[in-house]
């Protein structure tokens, strides 16, 4: 019981995740800036932004549903923080795992998007309503390829648990090579999940101001931003556990590997963000169904065939 609370709140729970989330946000912003030939922010900038937002007054629109408006950022933060308990960090085994925890993780990762939708919807403002409708439309486009991209490696590993999948590829690193198409599909779908260019359609600044977050400010916005940062950490952790078989027996070295792997994923995400323009929502949906889903499907097919061959 005592350890569970420590896991939840300190390591690898809220405090570690929050701190590492800020580090990852800094890495993302710095890489993005360097790719754009800019200097980029100093290392403490995300932390300073967070402190500043927290100290600001919280304004709730009169038309908004007060209870939902306040509760949703907490939901988002709780959902993404829980994911880390089932994700391998320094070793192949997560803190908690059971056969089928991959489904739980993917489910928990859907919750933030739903809270963005509900948060925008309950703000009752024009721009947030439009933004939340877009967020939901986008959800249906990227979730399927993301799930299928993770399904392939799981079939080959013969396990529905992320720890099981990680353990299989740690034992057979060469097998991870066949999962590269799935990794690409998952990375692109992740851009949609994290609402980043080219899929930052729900909060397209020049079109609908800040989308679902238009009416949010102060502490509540800080919580939303923090949950996005943490979501990036856990998604990077999930992708690196499934697709990058680089683990170590020792906890310290394993932790270093974890940092290197997640930062590598973040680098790929930042490079993608820097190299593209934002798509329109209907272009995004058709791209996801026409190209991304077939790519993920091909991954599933490859893994099923390979599994048959090995047997």
């Amino acid at each position, binding site marked *: 019981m005592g350890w569970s609370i420590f896991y939840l709140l300190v390591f690898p729970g809220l405090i570690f995740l929050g701190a590492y989330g800020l580090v990852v946000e800094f890495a993302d912003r710095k890489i993005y800036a360097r*790719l*754009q*030939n*800019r200097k980029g922010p100093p290392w403490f900038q995300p932390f300073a932004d967070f402190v500043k937002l927290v100290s600001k007054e919280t304004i709730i629109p009169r038309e908004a549903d007060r209870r939902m408006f306040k509760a949703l950022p907490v939901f988002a933060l709780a959902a993404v923080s829980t994911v880390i308990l089932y994700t391998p960090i320094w070793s192949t085994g997560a803190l908690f795992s059971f056969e089928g925890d991959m489904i739980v993780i993917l489910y928990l990762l859907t919750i933030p998007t739903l809270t963005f939708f509900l948060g925008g919807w309950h703000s009752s403002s*024009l721009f947030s309503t*439009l933004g939340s*409708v877009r967020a939901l439309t986008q959800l249906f486009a990227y979730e399927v390829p993301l799930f299928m991209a993770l399904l392939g490696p799981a079939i080959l590993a013969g396990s529905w648990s992320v720890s099981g999948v990680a353990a299989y590829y740690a034992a057979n690193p060469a097998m991870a090579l066949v999962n590269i198409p799935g990794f690409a599909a998952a990375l692109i779908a992740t851009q949609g999940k994290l609402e980043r*260019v*080219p899929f*930052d*359609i729900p909060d*397209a*600044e*020049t*079109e*609908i*101001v800040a989308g679902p977050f238009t009416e949010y400010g102060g502490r509540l916005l800080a919580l939303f931003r923090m949950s996005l940062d943490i979501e990036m950490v856990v998604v990077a952790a999930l992708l690196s556990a499934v697709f990058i078989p680089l683990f170590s027996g020792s906890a310290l070295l394993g932790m270093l590997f974890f940092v290197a792997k997640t930062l590598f994923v973040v680098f790929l995400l930042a490079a993608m963000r*820097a*190299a*593209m*323009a*934002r*798509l*329109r*929502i*209907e*272009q995004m949906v058709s791209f996801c169904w026409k190209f991304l889903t077939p790519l993920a499907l091909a991954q599933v097919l490859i893994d099923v065939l390979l599994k048959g061959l090995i047997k």
Partner: protein
Amino acid sequence: MAKVVIPIGPQHPALKEPENFILSLDGERVVGATVNLGYNHRGIEKACEQRTFLQDIYIIERICGICSHSHSTAFTQAVEEIAGTQVPKRALYIRAIVGELERIHSHLLWLGVAGHEVGFDTLFMYSWRDRELVLELLQDITGNRVNYGINTLGGVRRDISPEDAERIKKTMDVLEERTKYYIKLATEETTLIERFSGVGRLSKEDAFKYGATGPVARAAGISKDVRRDDPYAAYGEIPFDVITDEHADVFGRTVVRVKELLESYKIIRFALDNMPDGPISARVPRKIPTGEAVSRYEAPRGEDIHYVKANGTDMPERVKVRAPTMANAASVAHMLQGGYLADVPIVIAAIDPCFSCTDRTIRVKDLRRGDESVMDWNGLREYSIGWYRQRGVDCSAIKDFRKEDI
């Protein structure tokens, strides 16, 4: 989703200046659009009538922060025409060179803004980095980064030394390399093409109908350029091509602007090599004889028209400015219709709008009664006298310049 009416502006992140677009949406599709100008009226024309011709150059220059040289050149050309001044050749070449440098910085600025509007911030950062080179050049040869203040009645105020010319040429070489990269980027990067092509269509017929000018018209296949059709400054002696494109959409407008950059480098190189020696300004009398003139200038955004009427004093009787955005604004409502909400910012940005240069009137809307009216000068004067009288100030004795003139 039911039909919703959504306001873009007067305050909106996509707009760099306050202006209002009312859009009717059916889901993500725009089914109706109205453009409301008139949030930026600064009374510049009126201010010009109360200052001398020489002072007016500096006011006119501040109509626009980007095409400031366009406005001041158009104005000085009109005044010189009335006064019958023969401007020295060298001054005309310098005007053309500064004008082209301004076009380069304006088009690079536009490219960045267009990138930002479609969420491609990397393009924004790159092109604005390169724009900095031009701004530094302008600072070196004129003393200022934006409002150059190089024009004066009868010529220019500063000469371009051979060292300056060398530096300009070197920078042009750097920029030419970069521009070729942008052409490659604009025509090959998939997401950019997805967002630009087929968006904000304006056919050749519609461009004629709505009176579009500048790159907007040229992208619709209309070969129209004041520099060639009615040469001013030194353009009559400089060979260059008028870039046109048949795409008639945002993609076409991008291509036209980026290719025009290459033409500008050509013009500047030619002008620097063929610049005649001699004085850089001629004397113009303080009092300009009675007369009127219309002056046209190909600003980066399109045709800029100035009308000046002189009455024999040292102040103009009437100055009228028609900024290029005024001509292009009419076509925006047409371009927005039937498009997506996501494309609204880029369609508006694609005419390279400069709203504060455009506004010449105030629309007054009575919120309680809900009706709109346009106030003329006398109405505005009477309204303000009444407003101050209610607050215990009587300003009816302040003389009305207009009445005196009549």
